[in-house]
């Protein structure tokens, strides 16, 4: 067998094995995405109830509380970046990191120091490679986030927020950057400032001609707000993690689908080239035999 032909056959085999892997990953993501979406849907009532309560408190009570009031000249801002643990998901992690970098530039131009909190191995690697310091990191389980992790992240953030940026330890603002799951084909990176409370989105509109009631608080407004603050942060973080997980699976499915398609294309191209090389070899052999026979005949 000619050398050229062997090289092509090798390339075809290599593309075929790659295709098997990418196809398998595509199918795995496709099945996991449904579960991830179901979890997102299951946590929706919780997020809705919490957001509704927070907005009710924020709108219908005239109290000054850390939750709702912006601090005068904020110094330090926390940025929480949600990426994945593993790659092979197209631009999933890099688009979030890019967005986080933009946010960082913006915050620094406003004279704030950025404190990084990283979720997912990809973000940790990115920051470690550039020798940027992270206040805390969480790795593992980004594709199936648990509420415990969300709670841990939220506790860390709330503690930092309550400490405040004055002493150079805590923070005055909390921003989160994550991939919002729009649909199976679209996931957009999104920056949300969770604290101090900015805009409460997703609030259920009260029914027609119905106004939100004046709440009675048990025990006191301040204490209710104190209790609500961590719950609210937890729910936002958990929601971001679930959205990010769904987006990760969707992005991976898409990336792996195009990888499989590309492998198909490569196999087709190399098969053509290999056929060509084989024919060329045969033609050459024939012409050699014919040439040899002619030479023998004329020598007689």
């Amino acid at each position, binding site marked *: 067998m000619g050398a050229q032909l062997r090289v092509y056959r090798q390339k075809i085999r290599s593309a075929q094995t790659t295709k098997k892997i990418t196809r398998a990953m595509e199918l795995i993501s496709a099945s996991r995405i449904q579960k991830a979406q179901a979890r997102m849907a299951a*946590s929706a009532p*919780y997020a809705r109830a*919490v957001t509704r309560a927070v907005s009710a408190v924020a709108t219908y009570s005239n109290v000054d509380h850390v939750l709702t009031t912006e601090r005068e000249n904020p110094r330090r801002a926390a940025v929480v970046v949600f990426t994945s643990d593993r790659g092979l998901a197209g631009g999933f992690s890099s688009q979030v990191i890019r967005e986080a970098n933009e946010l960082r530039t913006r915050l620094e131009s406003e004279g704030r120091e950025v404190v990084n909190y990283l979720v997912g191995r990809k973000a940790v690697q990115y920051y470690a490679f550039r020798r940027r310091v992270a206040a805390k990191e969480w790795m593992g389980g980004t594709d199936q986030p648990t*509420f415990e992790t969300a709670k841990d992240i939220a506790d860390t953030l709330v503690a930092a927020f309550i400490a405040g940026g004055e002493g150079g330890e805590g923070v005055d603002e909390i921003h989160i950057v994550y991939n919002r799951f729009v649909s199976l084909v679209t996931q957009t990176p999104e920056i949300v400032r969770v604290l101090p409370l900015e805009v409460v989105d997703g609030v259920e509109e009260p029914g027609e001609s119905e106004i*939100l*009631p*004046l*709440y009675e608080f048990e*025990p006191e407004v301040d204490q209710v707000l104190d*209790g609500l603050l961590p719950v609210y942060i937890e729910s936002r973080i958990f929601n971001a993690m679930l959205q990010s997980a769904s987006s990760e699976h969707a992005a991976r499915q898409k990336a792996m689908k195009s990888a499989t398609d590309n492998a198909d294309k490569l196999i087709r191209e190399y098969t053509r080239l290999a056929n060509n090389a084989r024919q060329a070899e045969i033609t050459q052999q024939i012409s050699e035999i014919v040439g040899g026979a002619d030479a023998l005949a004329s020598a007689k």
Partner: protein
Amino acid sequence: MAELSVSVVAADREVWSGAAKQIVARTTEGEIGILPGHEPLLGILGAGEVRITPVSGAVITARAEDGFLSVENNTVTIVAGRAELVA
């Protein structure tokens, strides 16, 4: 008589929802009973149990931690990071 529409919600799922006659929950201040027509209320749950008396059937007990309770317009939402029904 009016009834309460109740939902007990945990972070990752809805634990129970339905119509009820009465709810007894424990806030940080102590136990509180809620009947239909209760004024709007927002309270922080203390550690303990929530007892729901459904319109029909036996009393349902749920353990809820880390959460709050909101009442408005005969709709009661019990929101907790962790919540489960006690058999």
